[in-house]
């Protein structure tokens, strides 16, 4: 299935893009989507601890199953003021 992944704030800088489409196996979750991204870019790995995920613009758990066509957003905490 295909999932559109969007990156926000500092994660957008680290990923070098605002979004990308990921091809994932059935049963994939935000966690497995994140792991697929980290396989391409291992340097993203340490950002996981404080990361939030939103599916179809709704904040959610990393272990909830994704569906084909979902929009998955990864949101790092932002502190600038």
């Amino acid at each position, binding site marked *: 299935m295909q999932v559109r992944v969007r990156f926000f704030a500092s994660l957008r800088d680290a990923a070098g893009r605002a979004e990308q489409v990921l091809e994932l196996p059935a049963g994939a979750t935000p966690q497995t989507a994140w792991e697929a991204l980290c396989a391409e870019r291992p340097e993203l790995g340490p950002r996981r601890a*404080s990361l939030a995920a939103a599916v179809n613009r709704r904040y959610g758990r990393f272990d909830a199953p994704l569906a084909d066509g979902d929009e998955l957003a990864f949101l790092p905490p932002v502190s600038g*003021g």
Partner: protein
Amino acid sequence: MSELSRSERARYARHLVLPEVGPEGQQRLRAGRVLVVGAGGLGSPAALYLAAAGVGRIGIADGDQVELSNLQRQILHTDADVGRSKTASARAALQARNPLVEVEELGRLDAATVADAVERFDVVVDGSDNFTARYLLNDACVRAGRPYVFGAVHRFQGQVAVFGLAGGPCYRCLHPEPPPPGLVASCAEAGVLGVLPGVIGSLQAAEALKLLLGLGEPLSGRMLIFDALAAGFDEIALARDPRCPACGDAPRPEARVVPLEACAPPPPLSVHELRRRLAGDSPPALVDVRTPGEHALGHLPGSRSIPLDELEARLEELRAGGALVVYCQSGVRSARAAALLRSAGLASVSDLAGGYLAWQAAGPAATP
């Protein structure tokens, strides 16, 4: 509540013609108290609009001085304010805009002072620039039951949300844990488009005014994300997490890690500054990290002995207290001790420059 004066009726005429505000709403604003944390990029527009709107009491918390590099976005301050304390500069600017508003200057909030500050205001607007302040404010607002109007900016993107309303999420529901140190470019490295905190801080002011007036739909349970480059807003729906360490069904204070300062840690205290703090209203606790033998030969009055090599095992003894000052013989071991304590999540830790030797050299006047 007393009637509005003739000059108030003139000043707030455009509020008074709004049926949703009117004289009663304006009186509510006059009775309102808002704490703005950070007189920077977000705090500037937020505080200016709150003062202009006639919020009766505005607290401004900040420990910094105005720098030339602030002026690109921090519209409370002018060229003539460079070098001045940000709270003094902010107070002057707000009172120039609206002399009817009371402005209270607070210093930098820390674990020892945040609870009292939050309790004295009705709404907290977070315009700080570091995760330490943000997690401290979130936790204090949850405990005190105060709405926490969050705003943050990064380069061309900003986010706003209201946390801590009944049934709504808090910041820790979204990000239970702070990011690991070193991964966040929050100080000067990332940069920010000057107008971006203007947009986000103004949205924070709008939310604070709505909360004081009891109007509309507060931005609770959702986060608004503004992208200046795309010229668009995203809205992410948020929900309270029953497992949240701060606002969950079973709050777990021990899991509420307060992160390190995103910026450099504070410089070591001079003997003079330590003496001043010890004489103040909330003196710090003193910890001697030298060996018990060195401690026995002489130490600062009232200090307890926890040798550096035992510090990690005895962290819990220190966690409950307020501000801490650690010292050693000359300042080397205490710098390591302070770094260790900060990385363990203790929010207000200083070390003494020059250690016990400097204290002794300062002479008997240095002994409180």
